[in-house]
């Protein structure tokens, strides 16, 4: 009889390409849920998505009301373009998140690291945006597309967010 081989865990590979507060949540929610179910998970942070793991910026992600008809309180673009409106919308959204007992982005990142979720920082974005590895939070791997695709090729699910 063959020895039982350990079952290979499922895996999810995510690309986080956007750096607004609302777009930072979905990849972190999916990755932490996957890890909660015993899956391997990895997120490739690229272009504005890199802000999610940027030491100074990840605590200050915002959501702009300008050109965003989905805001629950409808804000006309003309008003949304005024100074302070993004700060107001951001503070509103943070209020909903807190009321719903949802972790903040820094808290989600801590959870992700504790669960061994792989956090890839796109090296091209670093170069293009003039960001150094020291500008990023601890525990991320600098990688190019090949390294991420290598991880994603063995994944059951790949999503671009």
């Amino acid at each position: 009889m063959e020895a039982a081989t350990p079952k290979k865990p499922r895996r999810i590979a995510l690309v986080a390409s956007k750096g607004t507060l609302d777009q930072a949540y979905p990849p972190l929610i999916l990755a932490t849920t996957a890890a909660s179910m015993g899956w391997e998970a990895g997120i490739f942070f690229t272009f504005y998505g890199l802000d999610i793991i940027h030491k100074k910026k990840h605590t200050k992600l915002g959501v702009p009301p300008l050109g965003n008809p989905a805001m629950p309180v409808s804000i006309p673009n003309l008003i949304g373009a005024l100074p302070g409106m993004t700060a107001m919308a951001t503070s509103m959204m943070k209020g909903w998140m807190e009321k719903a007992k949802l972790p903040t982005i820094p808290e989600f990142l801590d959870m992700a690291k504790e669960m061994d979720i792989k956090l890839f920082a796109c090296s091209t974005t670093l170069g293009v945006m003039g960001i150094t590895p020291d500008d990023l939070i601890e525990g991320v791997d600098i990688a190019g597309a090949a390294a991420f695709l290598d991880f994603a090729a063995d994944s059951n699910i790949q999503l671009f967010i």
Partner: protein
Amino acid sequence: MTETDTTTLEVAKELDCIGMFCPMPIYKASMAMKGLETGQILKVLSTDLGSVADFPSFARQANHELLATDEADGVHIFFIRKGGN
């Protein structure tokens, strides 16, 4: 799932996720499971509407057994037996 008399279940740990939303009930359940032995039962209380669909999936994916579900006053209750890894 068969009908289970939940009053006879020996619950090792109870987890209160009332007022939380996805992914927190699942995340907290997975963390709570780490502290249990195989075969022990975790009881979870959740008001997240998604939990009704999420906990059967969580149990299937994480190799646990969802023994029973219940609902009272908008609180969904799940009894999950920890599976072996």
